[in-house]
């Protein structure tokens, strides 16, 4: 996986208190598996509050589990877990024995609350633990939980797999133990098969902070005690199926727990929860906008200024100055007797409605009284992305009204003709912007190593030649890091048989010499009111150079967008300087042409989907499906899968590409507007199937935030 952080961002997760919502069987507790639940190793039917993202670290029996859990919907939980088992060596004593002191395992869980709790009826949930891949923790369950009074919750359930391994009362078919394909495939052939056992427990909320719990475990811990893949494993001694303990809620975000488990050992846990629907400072704490300046009555008829020499230039200067104070840049302005069109760059407001609103108020304070119609156009690299048109009278009349009143009065458009008849404001084009700062590239939760990272210094520059034309480059120097470390010698299914389009990425991370991250010339343009285009040429990314072209259809009010991208590329030299290397590899030729047709759809209920179909880097054909939950404050949590026409064996370990992605908006953490954000992707192993070129400035994300579909969602910020 790859993560890019600005150095200052690390450690700002989970700053916000979690607020409880009245949903069925909600709990703030996490169990040792890091999933919502009031017991210890056993599951319950409880759910976390909707939209909660929690990180839990637990330790017991020489095993540390780090789990990221997201309450996808009020009744659906998804969890990713990274476990470290000391001295657990599958195939111990054989030549294929696991070579390292610590065994790392990744697992993924899903839980769904089938039945909500009623007055007499318990809530019922079904869950799949470790449902993909090797299945070290694989187990399924159906579980019921009932609240009795206000403090006691009683849970009983039946489990399969691990959860059916102790004291089973029946068997449902046979449970295979072979991994499907090259791992990384849902183990559907195991689900709800094999021995079935019962488990249960109680949790008692002693006060607001403290809860006690006791459970009867149906897990025999076969893998930990030498009965599984590692015959010599001795991670814990299991003397009893009973586990006991307590949880303590330190504050709204942090909870800790301590347990006595298996009649022989202790377990501890700490959990950090963040409510993604909340914010540290709702509405932000940035300074106030300029208030609207209301024109005197009848002054709007005075057009005398239009014949005043130099007046238009003077007004433009005033507007540019006032926009700059609001953190925005006036790039162009077309001022006529009764209307104005301003072309803006907004580097500050991540919630675009706020940028539009602040711009509108600046205009009320700086334009001659006769100007009644405002069209405000936002740009990306000088390309108009979206516009809002409103009347000045509405801005004056609705400043103190509910925000929805203004929304119903404005008109959105694509703003394609924004530059018609105007020249860029002096100083905006051509223009050089540059930055020099630290960078970190992280690779976390690999089966080889929990954390790999490179850190160093990066110099970036953009030369904006004219609206829509930009030359960009970045040079990095690594100071420390281990991204180039050799693999650990662990025997996995290996890198497959495709040309190495990504699996040799560590060769690009070697050495401390300056490297060119990218060096491109790009053109962004409009092909019509609903059409956008991009052409990027040069060294597109660390590993590939060439030409990338893209078109996008996205009407401002449309939830659906369609895009197409074609890339013609050659692999770059490992030193990341100016050379290209031969596309011919021992595993075959890296094809020059790849590309996709993409559909984007905003479901409107906080969920957003994307489907890409086409030819991937290694020449494989297939599709990527992505689904994200998007929050009005910029947080996004999603998952994607890519399946191409290569077999599991050809793909290598993991069978196909899939991952979880999280976007953390900086504005949320600091409480003031910022367009900076951090994207974290937890990906299956970097393999060669389903890989894509990484080009900067893809159109959809550049365009959508200024469109009606996005702006209307957070319109309340217009007056902020």
């Amino acid at each position, binding site marked *: 996986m790859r993560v890019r952080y600005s150095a200052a961002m690390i450690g700002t997760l989970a700053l916000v208190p979690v607020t409880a919502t009245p949903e069925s069987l909600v709990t703030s507790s996490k169990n040792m598996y890091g999933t919502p639940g009031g017991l210890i190793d056993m599951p319950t039917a409880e759910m976390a509050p909707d939209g909660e993202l929690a990180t839990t670290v637990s330790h017991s029996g020489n095993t540390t589990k780090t789990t990221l859990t997201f309450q996808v919907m009020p009744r659906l939980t998804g969890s990713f877990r990274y476990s470290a088992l000391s001295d657990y060596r599958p195939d111990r004593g054989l030549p294929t024995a696991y070579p390292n002191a610590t065994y790392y395992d990744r697992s993924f869980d899903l839980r769904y609350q089938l039945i909500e709790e009623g007055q007499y009826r318990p809530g019922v949930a079904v869950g799949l633990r470790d449902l993909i891949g090797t299945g070290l923790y694989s187990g399924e369950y159906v579980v019921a939980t009932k609240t009795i009074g206000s403090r006691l919750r009683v849970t009983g359930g039946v489990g399969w797999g691990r959860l059916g391994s102790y004291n089973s009362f029946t068997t449902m078919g046979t449970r295979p133990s072979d991994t499907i394909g090259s791992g990384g495939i849902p183990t559907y052939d195991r689900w709800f098969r094999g021995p079935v056992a019962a488990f249960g427990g109680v949790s008692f909320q002693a006060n607001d902070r403290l809860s006690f719990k006791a459970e009867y475990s149906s897990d025999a811990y076969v893998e930990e005690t030498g009965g599984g893949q590692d015959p010599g494993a001795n991670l814990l001694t299991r003397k009893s199926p009973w586990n006991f303990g307590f949880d303590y809620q330190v504050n709204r975000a942090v909870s800790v727990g301590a347990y006595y488990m298996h009649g022989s050992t202790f377990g501890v846990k700490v959990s950090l929860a963040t409510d993604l629907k909340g914010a540290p400072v709702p*509405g932000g704490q940035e*300074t106030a906008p300029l208030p*609207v300046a209301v024109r005197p009555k009848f002054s709007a008829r005075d057009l005398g200024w239009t014949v005043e020499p130099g007046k238009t230039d003077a007004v433009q200067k005033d507007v540019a100055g006032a926009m700059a104070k609001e953190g925005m840049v006036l790039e162009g302005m077309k001022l006529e007797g009764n209307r104005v069109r301003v072309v803006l760059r907004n580097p500050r407001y991540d919630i675009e409605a706020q940028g539009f609103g602040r711009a509108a108020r600046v205009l009320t304070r700086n334009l001659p009284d006769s100007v009644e119609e405002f069209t405000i156009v936002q740009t990306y690299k000088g390309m108009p992305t979206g516009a809002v048109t409103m009347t000045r009278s509405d801005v004056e009349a609705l*400043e103190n009204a509910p925000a929805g009143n203004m929304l119903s009065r404005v008109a959105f458009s694509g703003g394609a003709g924004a530059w018609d008849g105007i020249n860029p404001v002096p100083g905006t084009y051509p223009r050089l912007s*540059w*930055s020099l700062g630290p960078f970190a590239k992280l690779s976390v939760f690999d089966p080889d190593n929990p954390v790999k990272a490179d850190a160093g210094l990066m110099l970036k520059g953009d030369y904006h030649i004219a609206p829509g034309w930009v030359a960009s480059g970045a040079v990095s120097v690594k100071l420390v890091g281990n991204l180039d470390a050799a693999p650990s010698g662990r025997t996995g299914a290996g890198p497959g048989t495709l040309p190495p389009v990504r699996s040799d990425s560590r060769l690009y991370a070697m050495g401390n010499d300056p490297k060119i991250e990218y060096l491109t010339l790009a053109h962004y343009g409009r092909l019509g009111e609903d059409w956008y285009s991009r052409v990027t040429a040069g060294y597109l990314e660390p590993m590939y150079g060439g030409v990338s072209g893209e078109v996008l259809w996205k009407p401002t009010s449309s939830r659906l967008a369609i895009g197409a991208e074609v890339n013609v590329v050659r692999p770059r030299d490992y030193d990341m300087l100016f050379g290209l290397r031969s596309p011919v590899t021992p595993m075959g030729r890296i094809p020059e042409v790849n590309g996709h047709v993409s559909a984007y759809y905003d479901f409107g209920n906080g969920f957003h989907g994307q489907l890409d179909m086409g030819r991937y880097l290694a020449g494989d054909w297939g599709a990527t499906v992505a689904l994200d939950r998007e929050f009005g404050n910029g947080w996004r949590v999603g998952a994607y899968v890519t399946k191409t026409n290569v077999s599991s064996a050809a793909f290598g370990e993991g069978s196909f590409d899939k991952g979880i992605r999280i976007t953390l908006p900086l504005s949320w953490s600091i409480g003031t507007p910022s367009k900076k954000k951090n994207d974290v992707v937890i990906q299956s192993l970097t393999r060669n199937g389903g890989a894509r070129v990484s080009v900067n400035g893809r159109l959809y994300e550049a365009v959508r935030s200024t469109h009606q579909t996005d702006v209307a969602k*957070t319109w309340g*910020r217009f007056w*902020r």
Partner: protein
Amino acid sequence: MTVLRKIARLAALAAVAALAGCGNETDQGLVYKSVLQGLSQNSGQTMSAMAPEQTAAAVQASLAQTDLPLALAVVEKRQATAILANIETNGAYRTWGTSDRRTVTTAQGLVTATRGLGNDIMSSSVSQVAALVTGRKAGTGRRVMRYLDGENHTVEIASDCRIARGGQKRVSSGTIQNVLVTEMSEICSMSGGKSFSNSYLVDGRGRVLASRQWLGEANGYIALQLLR
């Protein structure tokens, strides 16, 4: 790599982090600045705490500096005092600003909006209660205050309010000298059983000369006193 070289590299990295990035892009430094400030400051704390004699001196200085209407504001929860100037008027709404760009908007003396405090009131509908308060009449009215939630969606707090008339007294404040005012109280109950109570001193012309008003759960009460 020798240990020494490793240490040298780490030191270089630390130096880079301390530089914390430079460049000519707008808002380039903002990120680092904000994060650093966030470590040392309470969120939203911008108005400062002032001793009474400091306040008096500041009031005198402000009265001398400008001809605009002025008011003194105290956000009680933060112990923050500020002098507000009436920087803009839009119909019945007057916007009062501090020198560090925080604003309070009032209609007939009742707070209808704030900006820059965090958890701001985005807008309010207070005409019913405002008519009673400024008319110095007892009665009941409904008020609605609107906020942004953590997802930037507008949320409303509606409450039913009872306005009562209290005694009369003479007050002085800034350039306002020895004016007879009526004490008015407004007790509002929100859905969910919570309540807040505002109080106002209203002169014979219906001007609210001083008040204590609820801004919301997060910011608590603001005390406002007209100086001119």
